[in-house]
């Protein structure tokens, strides 16, 4: 089965080192490829504009290159990127809407579709679509937490830090999301025992 694209702390640190010590463009490009889409999607949920989100993330990556020599001073580059994007997006929001508060109910969370080429044993395309619909119907706060946990592979405390909420809230909201998906599955999947 096709694996999720994730980067572990060790690989990330290696990229960081190559960029800082060798100004290695291919490492920089790799970093961009890993994080551009999730960061853009996160920024979009705040800004609700694709162009503005792309520009905000591109700006952050420009900063990264501009201070590449000091890049190793950043301890947690992944969280640094997410928090920079959050702050930059909120600053932009302030310019247009005079608000810089992150209101979790006012987000526009886009849940990226599952890779149609992924090999699955149980989940058919039809079922995947039903699950997508179930996720679509979740409240925005629940949806962003679910998205950051599943698609961005963020830890509870990382999500908590990013969204300014408690770990307990994340625990509850994720459980709610899974329960909803389970309900959909229970009504859609035929049990092998029931004839």
């Amino acid at each position, binding site marked *: 089965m096709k694996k*999720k694209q994730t980067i572990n702390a060790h690989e990330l640190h290696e990229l960081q080192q190559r960029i800082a010590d060798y100004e290695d463009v291919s490492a920089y490009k790799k970093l961009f490829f890993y994080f551009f889409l999730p960061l853009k999607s996160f920024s979009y949920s705040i800004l609700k504009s694709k162009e503005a989100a792309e520009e905000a993330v*591109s700006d952050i990556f420009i900063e990264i*290159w501009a201070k590449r020599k000091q890049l190793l001073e950043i301890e947690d580059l992944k969280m640094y990127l997410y928090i920079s994007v959050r702050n930059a997006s909120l600053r932009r929001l302030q310019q247009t809407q005079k608000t810089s508060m992150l209101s979790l109910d006012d987000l526009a969370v886009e849940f990226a579709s599952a890779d149609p080429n992924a090999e699955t044993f*149980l*989940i058919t395309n039809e079922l995947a679509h039903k699950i997508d619909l179930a996720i679509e119907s979740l409240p925005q706060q629940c949806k962003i937490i679910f998205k950051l946990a599943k698609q961005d592979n963020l*830890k509870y405390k990382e999500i908590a830090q990013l969204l300014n909420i408690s770990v307990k809230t994340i625990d509850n909201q994720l459980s709610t999301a*899974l329960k909803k998906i*389970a309900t959909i599955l*229970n009504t859609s999947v035929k049990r092998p025992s029931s004839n």
Partner: protein
Amino acid sequence: MNRDRIWTLMSRKLSGEATQAELSELDDLVKRYPDADIPVKFIHEFWAIPTESDEEFLEATFHLHSDRLKEKGFDLEINKFETGSLNLDMPVERRRSKKKLFWFSSAVVLTAAIVVFNLLSASKKTYSQEKVAQSEVSTKNGSRTKIQLPDGTSVWLNSSSKLVYDNTNFGSNIREVSLTGEAYFDVVKNPNKPFVIHTAKMDIKVLGTAFNVKCYPGEKTTETSLIRGSVEVTLKDRQEKIIMKPNEKLILNNDDIKPIKQLVAKSKQAVIDKVNPIIELSHLTIFPKDSTIVETGWVENRLIFSDERLDEIAKKMERWYGVSITIDNERLKKELLTGSFEKETIYQALNALQLTTAFTYKVDKDVITISK
């Protein structure tokens, strides 16, 4: 104990937050509530499904991002070459492929090409602003280069070749380029935007694939060699379409207008013996010594020929070394030779060929004359 706790524990498990005690608690709960078993299995699988990654979008976005960086005074292209040599000491870079080595060894040629490329695309400013201008990349005899198109597609351009595309419209609906000479394309897949290569005699339409096109003006044939994927070739003179499969090679006779006849050559012999068929679908030629594909050897900086006529080889060498070669003996022209050259000079190459076929050569500036 609450049944809903299954979902709390599942969330923790999937996010990598669960403790050992919580994992066994989850197992126990699923045993106690068997109807949760199926959703638990499905959710496990669902969680592991990756989201759709969009390589072309990323390539294109990185391209735009590089332009924005350049506006701020950071030119990534400069660093690309500086770090190229530095990286040789790094363990990560040691596993570099031959192709990449070619990239660095031809850095000088490449820099020149990129300058042209960038001058022509310099009007790109922001994400929304229109790009204007026609981009043209060309190589002289004796030089080769590699370029990357805005969609991320890689093009290796062989000697004495030219690639032209319209910067304004490239990639809006269809990705179109025009080619004279020889090029190897590694096309980034995008089913919504077909990639079309126009040559004098045929158009080649692809979705995402790697292949070689050879269409030098003045040569007898136009050739397409497919490495992977599939392409659709339209022959301009007759509006005929041919779908090619991997490892096939299509040879079109440039100056013939005889009735349509498609031949499938089973062996190389057929290629040589047939009286110039109009179209031939044959197979790629494998160089016996190291199984390299002869048609694309030049991409890895190798000049390869396998059982080819000396006059055909001379043409290849002219372009490769940037010299002019004449053969003043008719029988010699038809001699079939096999060889592979990488770092050899033209003289070393000629001396090596002399070992298998008896001939002499004399050199007068850039003109080499081969005689019996």
